[in-house]
């Protein structure tokens, strides 16, 4: 997974199948960014599959970000992944953007 930093925001570009094989790495990357005091934007544009272990990592990071007062959002979630989010009722929980904008959530 590729990471880019813009003005205190870590943009993490996920790609391909994000499943049990990579979810612990995803978790480490997300939590590491938060520990560094960064906001998180997870770009899912080229994700072809996502499973519950990866979603668990996103949930944990989202909760940690909220606790730390950091911003967290998903961006460009493809429809197959959105279907999974809807089944899990997470489409109402995660902030979801339709583009990658490091200024997200700022007023």
């Amino acid at each position, binding site marked *: 997974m590729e990471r880019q930093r813009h003005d205190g925001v870590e943009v993490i570009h996920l790609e391909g*199948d994000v499943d*049990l094989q990579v979810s612990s790495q995803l978790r480490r990357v997300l939590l590491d960014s938060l520990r560094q005091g960064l906001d998180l934007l997870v770009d899912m544009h080229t994700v072809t599959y996502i499973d519950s272990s990866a979603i*668990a990592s996103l*949930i944990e990071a989202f*909760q940690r970000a909220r606790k730390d007062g950091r911003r967290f959002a998903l961006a460009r979630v493809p429809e197959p992944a959105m279907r999974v989010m809807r*089944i899990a*009722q997470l489409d109402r929980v995660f902030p979801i953007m339709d583009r990658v904008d490091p200024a997200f959530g700022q007023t």
Partner: protein
Amino acid sequence: MTATPAGNVPPPTGELVFELRVPARAGLLKLIRGAVGEAAREAGCASASADELVMAVDEACQNVIRYGYGDGALGDLIVQCSRDDEAMTVRLIDFAPPVDPSTVRPRPLHELRPGGLGTHLIRESVDEVAFEPPHGRAGNVLRLVKRIE
């Protein structure tokens, strides 16, 4: 992948499409997803329906990998995919300690926490999910059924 020893696998429901025996490892989930997805589409499942079956199978396989053998122990997983005119049936057979089905429960979705989502995804994705009595040396047999539509 190896040929399946006779006696550990129940007979398929309808026509056998494929049977895979693989080590229960996360790195092989993509292969399993590909095989199940292809089999479902070939049988006439619509794309979304095939994706749902794939998701259920993947989540169930994850449970075997993470909780079935446990503590890094190695073990095999058999994925049996069969079909008849109405439905795809996927059986997952492992050789781990037997699961108590009463302990397998989805978490309430309003409780936002990282774990417990897999069981919910399985139940929402297939028409039927049930443990069957194991054959031979098998520990657990989980049957997932998805109507072909």
